[in-house]
């Protein structure tokens, strides 16, 4: 498993362009002796329960074949020719703050051409869109060509995705390392999280299988 430290998605973010590489330098240097700092420090934990999301199984298979929960692990799969199976979370209560979704994620080998996590508005598009896009287990965000992480099959990793509609800034961490800072258009409404398996073009015979555990929701109220 390899994760890629962040690169700026917008040259105009001059302030961030200075701050982020410095932060990464510190993070990289200190990684030898201690783990990266928890990005959620100081954030507000948002409680959730089984009513906080709905499972969208837009396949012809029964739910029990596409979505299960075993010992706290949410197991989702989608097959070639099917559309999607996703946990669709409620719209954010406060869209004037940075909101974050976090989970440990396990991607089974063979999963490909599938979006596994989105920060989405039905009217304003997808500010974060994480896809496994090849058969090496490499992950990409949005339209970016280079991966945010490579060789992610078969190993649990912690994924954090955040977006602030007011600033348009999106951020992604893998194992608490910032791997992406982007800039989407500002504003919009009805932002929400979606995790699961959205088929972006699974080849014949292929399937994507992804697992989530320790799902947490956060908001930066500072």
């Amino acid at each position, binding site marked *: 498993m390899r994760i890629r430290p962040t690169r700026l998605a917008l040259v105009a973010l001059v302030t961030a362009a200075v701050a982020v590489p410095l932060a990464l330098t510190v993070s990289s240097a200190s990684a030898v002796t201690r783990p990266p700092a928890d990005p959620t420090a100081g954030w507000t934990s948002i409680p959730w329960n089984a009513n906080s999301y709905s499972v969208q199984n837009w396949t012809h298979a029964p739910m029990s074949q596409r979505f299960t929960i075993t010992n706290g692990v949410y197991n989702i799969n989608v097959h070639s020719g099917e559309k999607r199976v996703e946990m669709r979370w409620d719209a954010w209560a406060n869209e004037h703050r940075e909101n974050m979704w976090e989970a440990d994620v396990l991607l089974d080998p063979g999963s490909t*051409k599938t979006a596994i996590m989105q920060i989405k508005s039905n009217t304003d598009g997808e500010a974060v869109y994480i896809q496994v896009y090849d058969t090496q287990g490499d992950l990409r965000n*949005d*339209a970016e060509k280079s991966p945010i992480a490579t060789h992610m099959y078969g190993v649990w990793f912690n994924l954090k995705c955040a977006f602030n509609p007011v600033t348009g800034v999106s951020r992604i961490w893998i194992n608490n390392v910032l791997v992406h800072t982007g800039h*989407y*258009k500002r504003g919009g409404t009805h932002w929400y999280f979606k995790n699961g398996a959205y*088929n972006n073009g699974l*080849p014949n015979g292929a399937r994507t299988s992804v697992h989530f555990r320790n799902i947490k929701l956060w908001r930066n109220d500072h």
Partner: protein
Amino acid sequence: MAVLALAGCAAVPTYPVGTAWDAPPGWRLSVTGMRCGPAATLDPGDPDEQDTCLVEVAYRNIGDRARPFSGTTDEPGPTWRLVGYDAQAGEFHGRARPTAPTPPGGSGTAQLVFEVPSGLRLSRVLVGDAIVRLSG
């Protein structure tokens, strides 16, 4: 050929509708048009989907072996990256409908599917390494 810089990307070649380009590995393709409308009509099966834009692509296999335009496990093909943009730079990620294998020298058409809000028409679409201007 114009060149457009996308946020976060290097310069991307940009083409108008109807202009063909070579797309690795071994395809020549052009976007021929777009239809947008209710998802229930254009892309049924997902009641959460509002509208859909179907982007029509004409392709020719200029490689030396048969394969589907929509890709295989070993070779994602030109549809490895599909993103639609509205006029305000909103992003709507898409997918390719599966296609049958095309022999060397053969051609065909495919549809790229994008979920969009009601009434929205995409203004640009990123297909692999190229942008196609759909309007303006």
